[in-house]
């Protein structure tokens, strides 16, 4: 994230945050372009899914890790984003960008509704309320099945790809651009006075308010931003699956997001890529694993659930900083060639 931990130690990045983050994002884009253009369409689809989960995880990491508010209901915000884009695609012919912005806006609005009472709540209370939110929203879509399409759901269409680009790669690119834009915005935000206010409120609300920070407003802001990220991720998920129905947003989605965030490293942004890789590939690994053990086909879904749960427990008890925290620790503690002498050192 910050240049101290940047892998490119020898390279001087600009000290101005926006310029630095834009350069890092462009570098990431270049690498991802090389990856996606060499992959098969199905792998492109998976890279796109990783990108969309990264968006939701980054928002969750900001809320929980940076601002200290937990959410067990981020799947609900994703559902709102997904249904918004699907409803707009079914009933209107708006510009694609406007449809995405509407998804972000509607999820942010729900974030505001949940975030305002949340300002008065401590950890476990907020956890219970968001847990209830994750369970409460899907049945609402079932109740008004004529509007929301019931079990069948609503279909979405990806904008047509330009030229000879195949549709999977095009969709992956839309999602990657969304993820990189989100990262630049959030990374900048975290280095601004808003980011400092988020952290100050997390560490000590009384001290923060004595320092002139409006605690309630700061917490609501964090909630709205986090929900907005989840809304965009939900809209992208709707595009990936092509159909938006309530079955896509069970409670387990919210808990898997939490597990991925915790594993990646709560409060980090870069760590969310590890978490997103886990979210996309763990179900596949568990399917092949349960095949090896000759468990029934139904068991594979449960195996993934068990692994996510074990990840939550083990990481919290043994390594609360997650993978990214472990990597940072290793980066600082592993002896390096020529450390201590500047001349002739091998910079990696």
């Amino acid at each position: 994230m910050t240049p101290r931990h940047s892998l490119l130690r020898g390279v001087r990045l600009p000290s101005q945050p926006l310029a630095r983050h834009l350069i890092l994002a462009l570098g990431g884009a270049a690498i991802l372009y090389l990856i996606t253009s060499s992959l098969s369409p199905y792998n492109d689809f998976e890279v796109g899914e990783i990108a969309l989960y990264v968006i939701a995880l980054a928002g969750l990491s900001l809320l929980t890790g940076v601002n200290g508010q937990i959410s067990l209901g981020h799947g609900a915000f994703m559902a709102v984003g997904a249904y918004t884009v699907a409803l707009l695609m079914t009933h209107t012919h708006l510009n694609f960008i406007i449809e995405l912005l509407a998804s972000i806006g509607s999820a942010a609005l729900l974030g505001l509704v949940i975030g305002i009472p949340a300002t008065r709540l401590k950890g476990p209370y907020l956890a219970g309320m968001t847990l209830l939110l994750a369970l409460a929203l899907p049945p609402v879509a079932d109740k008004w099945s004529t509007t929301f399409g019931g079990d069948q759901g609503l279909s979405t269409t990806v904008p047509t790809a330009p030229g000879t680009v195949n549709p999977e790669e095009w969709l992956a690119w839309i999602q990657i651009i969304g993820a990189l834009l989100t990262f630049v915005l959030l990374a900048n935000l975290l280095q601004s006075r808003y980011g400092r206010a988020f952290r100050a409120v997390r560490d000590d609300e009384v001290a923060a308010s004595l320092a002139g920070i409006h605690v309630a407003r700061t917490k609501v802001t964090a909630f709205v931003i986090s929900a907005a990220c989840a809304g965009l991720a939900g809209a992208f998920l709707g595009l990936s699956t092509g159909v938006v129905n309530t079955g896509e947003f069970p409670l387990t989605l919210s808990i898997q997001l939490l597990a991925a965030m915790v594993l990646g490293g709560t409060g980090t942004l870069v760590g969310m890529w590890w978490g997103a890789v886990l979210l996309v590939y763990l179900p596949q690994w568990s399917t092949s694993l349960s095949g090896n053990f000759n468990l029934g086909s139904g068991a594979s879904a449960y195996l993934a659930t068990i692994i996510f749960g074990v990840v939550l427990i083990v990481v919290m008890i043994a390594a609360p900083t997650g993978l990214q925290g472990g990597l940072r620790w290793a980066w600082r503690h592993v002896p390096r060639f020529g450390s201590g002498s500047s001349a002739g050192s091998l910079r990696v």
Partner: protein
Amino acid sequence: MELFINVTLDGVANGMIFAALALALVLIFRATRIVNFAQGAMGMITTFIASSLLGQGVGYWWAFLAVLAIGFVLGALVERVLIRPLQGKSELNPVIVTIGLLVVLEGLAGTIYGNSSRGFPAAYSQSGLTVGHTKIAFSHFDVFILVAVLVLMTGTLVLFRATTLGLRMRASAFAGEISRLLGVRVGLLLTLGWALAGVTGSLAGLLVAPTSSFGPYFMDLVLVYAFTAAVIGGLESPLGALIGGLITGLCISYVGGYLGSGLQPLGALVLLMVALMARPEGIFARPAARRV
């Protein structure tokens, strides 16, 4: 009018079950400041064990007692293995660990017992009682629920108010360090609190299973309703859990009866948000001072 009466009776029966699980949450919260989000799933897994025992031909009441004992052991085990290492860490850590336990238990139940919901027998007949000439929506089993939960509540109150053990438990929750100096085995009593909550959660599972689609996820909604009930009651008071349970049960029942069952969780969410906005510390909690 008949609908109203039946919906109300249904709400009372459900409310008693929510009160039982809310009591389990309260027992743990007042001792350790932790909300055990896995409480419902622990009740789910013990109910599956009961179902297996019944399938083996064990009598209902033996299975009932065995499962309460298993709940006791499970509660103690969870506290010792998963919760004890988190002492003194951020309050978000136990939330995340109990959520992890919730999904592990649901995953295990799904792997072992399969996803399809199966039936679970009730202790008594589930057809409505007849009052005068009309059949009401309150069965022998609902009477049993009412009695069982009231016995449980009374037992808890007697334990905390009238026994030395209860006094020690209250003391170690209230001022652990001082109690330890006075020779109270605080660690052991915290484990006992979790174990008793395990018994209560198992009872709730046995009471819910006959009237729901009994499967790995059947306690999810019951848990969040019980959480709502516990929060309304202040998360610290057994009596508050009972009254919160009844309020939640009635609200859920009216929403289900008049607006449709799909809106019940949303109704609970609105109720919880209103309760938290109006009185975040609950109806029965004493005002707390905050030291800076």
